């Protein structure tokens, strides 16, 4: 309850730190998963060469972009369908 904006509960120190840590963890996980997946999809597993070929490089770039788009798309659909089924807020 607040009158004129006073008395709004401030997040505690622990909560603020946990929030930042959490967000960074989520981002780091996404980063790690993307590397795993795009390596799988784009990099020649025989490792005959120690350098990325032009083709592999371009594939990696596109893979990263698609990964993010897939993440967004899936996220949005889950929200829509989840809401329709009564999950979440």
């Amino acid at each position, binding site marked *: 309850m607040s009158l004129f904006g006073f008395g709004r509960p401030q997040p505690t*120190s622990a909560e603020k*730190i946990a929030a*930042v840590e959490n967000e960074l963890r989520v981002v*780091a996980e996404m*980063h790690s998963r993307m*590397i795993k997946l795009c390596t799988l999809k784009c990099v020649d597993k*025989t490792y005959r060469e120690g350098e990325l070929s032009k083709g592999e*490089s371009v594939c990696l770039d596109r893979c990263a972009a698609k990964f993010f788009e897939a993440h967004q798309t899936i996220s949005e659909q889950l929200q829509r369908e989840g809401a329709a089924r009564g999950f979440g807020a």
Partner: protein
Amino acid sequence: MEGLTAAESRELEQRLQKRQVKEFMTVFGNLVDNCFAACVDDFTSRALSGRETGCLSRCVTKSMATQTRLGERFAELNAAMTAEMQKR
């Protein structure tokens, strides 16, 4: 990271450093797994063969190049996604 006191900032920095170490161990582990799976398949001997060693070496070099490239793409895409989300 607005609104953190000096003490909170320090605490956060410490936690992030610990997290970075953990991160590195994960990356290292994934690298070993990936390169071992791709390169090592000759169990007629206990020692790595010359072929396997060469493959592992190339795999490591290539994996590091991949990480670098994807790291750059990730940063760009993540920034764009964050900006997009804030607009909504």
